[in-house]
């Protein structure tokens, strides 16, 4: 961990302004990912701006019938919120499938969206990694890639997005609300929030310098049956090999988002459109364009089988 300075923002505008004008500044919220990465010098901020005290920890209904979730709402509180459990159960289930109770107590909504990959080559600073050190190459492409992405990857990077929460938010068509360095506010559709690696895997999201997530807004409830199924190498406290978030309607329509397989939380219109045709059709549509390695090719089959499991249980 390099020495850094620390300040508490007075307001969201102050936070964004300070972040934009301070070289090497980062926001700190729960710190469940950032602090670990700082100890390993994968992240080397010179200044931390604490945004924990800006009143961004509320969950409130929107005029449109949706829900606005403050960026600092802890994962534990969000998963336990009555409205979330009633109207957006897939989000609650995704949250509870992630991390551990202790981590969820600290981790925040905004921070979770920004958590970085668990690719082991990203984590070992002696290894090549284009995400950590642009231009150094990808250690994973021809290395141990069992846990890594099969969709949305590039020759520069095959890292997976590790979040469970973001998969549910992608399913729910959430908007990421921000304040910019100039004090301007905007809402970014979750579909556009995370970026594919392409040639620039170190650029992971649409945020501009200094831009701060203030809340995540959910549209009005979808109804239907909400499921989140996470398949992993142990029962709890492990990242997904494959996860599927789904909302099933009574008439056979459904929507799907996937974790563990994509460079970002993965969702395609084609997969949703294939819902009435069954699990195999959804899998085929969702996996279109997959570029697996020898180590992670099983994720295709596992995705199809996880979908089959969901359809089987839905029928039961």
């Amino acid at each position: 961990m390099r020495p850094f300075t620390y300040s508490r923002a007075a307001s969201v505008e102050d936070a964004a302004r300070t972040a934009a004008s301070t070289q090497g500044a980062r926001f700190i919220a729960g710190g469940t990912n950032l602090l670990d990465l700082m100890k390993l010098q994968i992240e080397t901020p010179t200044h931390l701006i604490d945004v924990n005290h800006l009143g961004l920890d509320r969950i409130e209904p929107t005029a449109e019938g949706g829900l606005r979730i403050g960026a600092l709402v802890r994962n534990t509180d969000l998963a336990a919120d009555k409205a979330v459990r009633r109207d957006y159960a897939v989000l609650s289930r995704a949250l509870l499938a992630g991390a551990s109770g202790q981590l969820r107590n600290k981790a925040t909504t905004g921070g979770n969206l920004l958590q970085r990959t668990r690719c082991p080559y990203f984590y070992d600073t002696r290894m090549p990694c284009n995400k950590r050190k642009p231009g150094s190459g990808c250690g994973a492409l021809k290395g141990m890639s069992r846990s890594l992405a099969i969709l949305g990857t590039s020759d520069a990077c095959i890292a997976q997005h590790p979040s469970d929460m973001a998969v549910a938010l992608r399913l729910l068509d959430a908007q990421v609300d921000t304040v910019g360095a100039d004090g301007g506010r905007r809402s970014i559709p979750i579909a556009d929030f995370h970026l594919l690696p392409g040639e620039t895997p170190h650029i992971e999201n649409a945020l501009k310098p200094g831009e701060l997530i203030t809340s995540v807004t959910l549209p009005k409830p979808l109804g239907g049956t909400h499921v989140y199924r996470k398949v992993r190498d142990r029962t709890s406290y492990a990242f997904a090999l494959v996860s599927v978030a789904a909302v099933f309607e009574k008439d056979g329509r459904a929507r799907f988002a996937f974790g563990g397989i994509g460079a970002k939380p993965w969702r395609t219109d084609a997969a949703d459109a294939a819902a009435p045709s069954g699990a195999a059709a959804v899998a085929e549509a969702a996996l279109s364009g997959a570029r697996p390695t020898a180590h992670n090719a099983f994720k295709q089959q596992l995705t199809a089988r996880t979908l089959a499991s969901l359809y089987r249980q839905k029928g039961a």
Partner: protein
Amino acid sequence: MKFDTPATTNPIDRGRVIGIPHDRIDGAAKVTGTAPYAYERHDAAPNAAYGWIVGSAIAKGRINAMDLRAAEAAPGVLGIVTHQNAGPLGKGNMNTAHLLGGPQIEHYEQAVALVIADTLENARDAARLVRIDYAPDQGRFNLAAERDKGVPPEGGFGGPADTKAGDFEAGFAKAAVKIDQHYTTPDQSHAMMEPHATIAAWNGDKLTLWTSNQMIAWSVGEMAATLKIPKENIRLVSPYIGGGFGAKLFLRADALLAALGARMVGRPVKVAIARPQIPNNTTHRPATIQRIRIGADRQGVIDAIAHEVWSGDLPGGGAETAAQQTRLLYRGPNRLTTHRLSTLDLPEGNAMRAPGEAVGLLALEVAMDELAEACGVDPVELRIRNDVQYDPEAGPQRPFSSRKLVECLREGAERFGWNRRNPKPGQVRDGRWLVGMGVASAFRNNLVTKSGARIGVDAKGHVTVETDMTDIGTGSYTIIGQTAAEMLGVPLDAVTVRLGDSRFPASSGSGGQWGGNSSTAGVYAAAMALRAKLAEKAGFPVDKALFEDGLVRLGNQSQPLGTLAGREGLWAEDSMDYGDLTKRYAQATFGAHFCEVGVDIDTAEVRVRRMGGAFAAGRILNPKSARSQVIGAMTMGVGAALMEELSVDTRFGFFVNHDMAEYLVPVHADIPHQDVLFIDELDDKSSPMKAKGVGELGICGAGAAVANAIYNATGVRLRDYPLTIDKILAASTGKRVA
């Protein structure tokens, strides 16, 4: 004291304190945070500076140059130890690679520098500023590719490389039923809770190390050899240890570098090996390739059995002796075991809980399941049919000291409800789960080794025991206290136990499940000496005197221990040494594991639903701590079966998943109820305690029971551990797992 004839009735047989499920006497201190671990000994070594290890970025090659200028100029830095300034260092016999590398690099993450600073953060930060120019060499990192270059390893704990009896090839050729399969097990990391950690301080030429180490006397010797100083100048203190599993049997880089660092900066230095450094810097359980051939008649009675094992290690290292149990577990006149060792430039392979058997049984007990199916014999019955009451390589002239495998299988099966198992795989459904049951035998050699202690009584009749024995979470404090209390006829709370200090008499230490039996036998010897002194003071013949209720009694006469001890107190010291009973008798511990799993019909997720085991390990000194040992080891067996694997990057030559986020071990949610039964057994040839080891028995075979249960659930036979979802799917045909 020498133990060279089977034990007769002795004071331990009273069983007033021994054999009672006492809580750990160190438990309250541990759970209240008042038992300081090595890295926390600020009381003993105030003002310690912090060392941070720099690990090699290459697996094999040389350091061309080191540039320390930026690191030395960083805030708070007090000094940097490297091979260039450490002075001439030797190497202990038990280390394969050098603990401080350079200029030659022997493996990835080998320590090449220790940066010492005033704070942990400054040391860690400056460590990243050490610039090293490497000249990498081509290394050998792929066991499968190097397998055929393997040579017979030189003898170690595992006995000879190869053994033979009868004519295996001829027996196998004419067998009615044949099994011939290959199995693989991966590299594994100990993943104990407390990392390797040491505080070192010099006083003149005297060195004290507060460290976390299973083997005090060994490590004093190793440190002396490495630093080239007399053993007498080294004190090693390790009273509390947060797990070891074999990782802390030896001197490691934390201890050596803390000593070198403290010498350099002239004040105490503390060093912990950071969690992400542990898998590549320290030792691990080596991967194996195993071939098992079994020839049997149609009833499953074995006529020929062969177990061949390949593993790899650094030059000068040792083999994973995975065929050990196959030499002793089942009958059959025609036998063959071989071990071959290839050179690999991966980090150092070495002992991890039940080295040999833990991975040998992952193969053998699946092969036995395959034989049971091929013969149409129930797997429990198959094992009973192949029981043998003597060393099957040596013949009936070398019987087992005690062997209750059959009892374990029968009683374990009864308790588990084995008769509800459907022998045909893939038949039992519970919702989305395919359900199956598996069994495996447990076997672990019983090792005994010399162990000493001293024991004293003060004027109040309070007893103190001192030995350099360690408690690595196993319960040594408690069973040693129980032994002393039993021998002297006092309650457990009248005994203080002091462990893990090289100033105390040398003990067996903790390893190879020898510690519990051996160290209490050492206390027994010392207590016998003290009883003689006390009886003499009382004027009673020692063989007639009774020690009970804090008194020495003869008929109507009695005297309190405290009175006899007087103001000075009374002490005695002795050790237990062993004759040839381990040669005349095969000595081992036995058990039977039972497991029920569910396998998701679509996703192939495996959930262990129930585990049960029955174990025969001589006298159980403390049923509570023994049960904890067994269920912990069963849990580790589940890890080996389902998830534990250090993934090798064969290009760069390192273990890729080198932290606890990526190297998975079971969490609570993976482990269901575990039922443990200890079969009544006293082994009079093992020690006067009539006990045997139990700390490793529980892992032996546990993973194979899981594998066999998966087969019974699904019909998918897997032979390459760990048995992960991708492998089950690859072996499944059709849309469902079954």
